[in-house]
């Protein structure tokens, strides 16, 4: 390897101290952001992405609507201070268009668009920090934001990136590893075990592909557990708040009963 940093040392540790198949820390924040219908902030290590979802709602431009299903509109913006070297990307930047097209096509078969004819679902992605695994973070955050918005999905979409260092597969790459290794991003639907996205921008030997692909599919299941827990926690909190609200009025018979019991 030409890099000065050892990607994988003799002890089997990577540059940030992880083992080969270890994923980075995931934190998920599903609290409301502004006026959005659904929102999620996910961090994979130092990569942080915020997604807000609006809709299904009437499209701004009527001509773009379809008569039999909803249209997904993905818009992405990358904060200029998110990378090591400052770079301001415009909305029409090719890299951004490519990523948003990939995300759109990933979610097209998962969102039940046929339930909302002649409408539009807006997905706004904000990249706040980047340290590798950008597409994976975008996809995971979009899944969570769509779920918090209450948009019907067939399944979760869980994405993870993987790479190969000589013959050893690695999961969840940082920028440093991404620059040096052939890498791919895989998005899986964990319940049906279907794959909705496999993308690769570098060259990888065909014999190595199978290993890393199977490993990434398995890692998707692990990420699914984390995402499911976050969604469940939020729903429990919401249901709890609803119950508290329902019991609050003083004329509630249930409440009187408990008062007498005491």
């Amino acid at each position, binding site marked *: 390897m030409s890099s000065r940093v050892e990607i994988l040392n003799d002890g089997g540790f990577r540059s940030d101290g992880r083992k080969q198949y270890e994923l980075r820390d995931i934190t998920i924040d599903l*609290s*409301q*952001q*502004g*006026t*959005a219908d659904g929102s999620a902030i996910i961090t994979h290590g*130092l990569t942080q992405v*915020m997604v*807000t979802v*609006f809709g299904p709602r009437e499209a*701004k431009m009527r001509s773009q609507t379809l008569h039999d299903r909803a249209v997904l509109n993905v*818009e992405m*913006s990358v*904060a*200029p*201070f*998110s*990378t*090591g070297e*400052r770079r*301001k990307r415009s*909305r029409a930047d090719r890299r951004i268009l490519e990523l948003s097209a990939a995300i759109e096509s990933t979610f097209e078969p998962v969102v039940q668009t046929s339930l909302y004819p002649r409408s539009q679902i*807006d997905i*706004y992605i*904000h990249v*706040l*920090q980047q340290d590798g695994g950008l597409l994976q973070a975008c996809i995971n955050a979009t899944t969570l934001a769509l779920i918090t918005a209450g948009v019907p999905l067939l399944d979760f979409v869980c994405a993870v990136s993987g790479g190969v260092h000589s013959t050893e597969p690695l999961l969840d790459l940082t920028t440093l590893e991404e620059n040096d290794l052939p890498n791919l991003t895989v998005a899986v639907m964990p319940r049906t075990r279907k794959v909705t996205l496999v993308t690769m921008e570098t060259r990888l030997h065909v014999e190595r592909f199978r290993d890393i692909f199977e490993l990434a599919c398995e890692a998707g299941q692990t990420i699914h557990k984390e995402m499911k827990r976050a969604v469940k926690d939020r729903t429990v909190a919401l249901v709890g708040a609803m119950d508290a609200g329902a019991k609050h009025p003083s004329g509630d018979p249930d409440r009187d009963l408990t008062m007498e019991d005491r």
Partner: protein
Amino acid sequence: MTSALVSKAERAYIQASLQATPPLRGDGRGLLDFRTVFLETGVAPLANGSARLNIGKMAHEGGGGTEILAATKLEVEDVETGDGVDGGRIVCSVSCSPSAYSHLSSNALDELQYDLTVILQQTIAHPSLHPQNLTIIPRKKSWLLNLDVLILADSGNVVDAVFMAARAALWDTKVPRTRAVEYHAPEEIQTMRDSAGAMDIDQREAIPQASGFDTREMVRTAADFELPDYWDEGEVLNGRERWPLCVTLNLLPPTHFLDATLSEEASVPSRMHLAFSFGKPNASKLQSMRLSGPGELDLSQIKAYIADGEKYACDLFNALEAKLRDEDARRNVKARNKFALR
């Protein structure tokens, strides 16, 4: 600035209640009260300084409010060949997230971004506020300070929020320490080598040289710089107390009020943005003034508004200053103690 849709009846209702005695606002505030402001510095690890600000977040639901993310990033610029300016320069940019203005088309969004960028750039990059320590090597290298402001959500009073976030990010900015480096041509090597043949002697001893501690002359001839290895990230921007703050007076004659929500903004015809800088205690400077909306104002009225605005800005400045010092303490002293206790 943004046109949230308010019906005629709603507008009349809001105006009437603001002009009533005592004045009434939708959320129960007084005319001069701000909503709760949340501020955190050091939110972007890859930036030289950063801040996240929220005005009017709902206490329980955790949503709503005007949300701003501001960050500064320093770049090295060459004065002689590049487009650097001796003494460094500051470039501001404001970008609005489409989720904050989901009713606007992308062209309208660009225009709004441009408007806000101009307001911020003209005020912040003014020579009177320019920090002295953006020079690396005089007439050769200087820092370019990029200030990027991201509006993530807008629920009114966006200009004040942008200025507050920008001030916090600039306050938080650390300029890396640099040391000038000078190159000496080893003149005598050639002659020495000729006489010594293939023998390789350390030639440096032979060159008559000034003391290595004498750096007085160095700055003038320095060619490049290096970053010394040091424990902290660098020094703060020079004169960071001077960065301006903006207060927006929403004018509804005979009264005016602060920190308007979206619907209040939409029902008031004109507003006045006043940016003040408080460099020395009890000495404020009006850095910029902008009147937006139709209508006219008497000169005497403007004077009165500026005097009032200065008072509000001073209160805001004191509160923000206290918070920023508190944040500094949280991130340095307290973090260090916490680490020591582990």
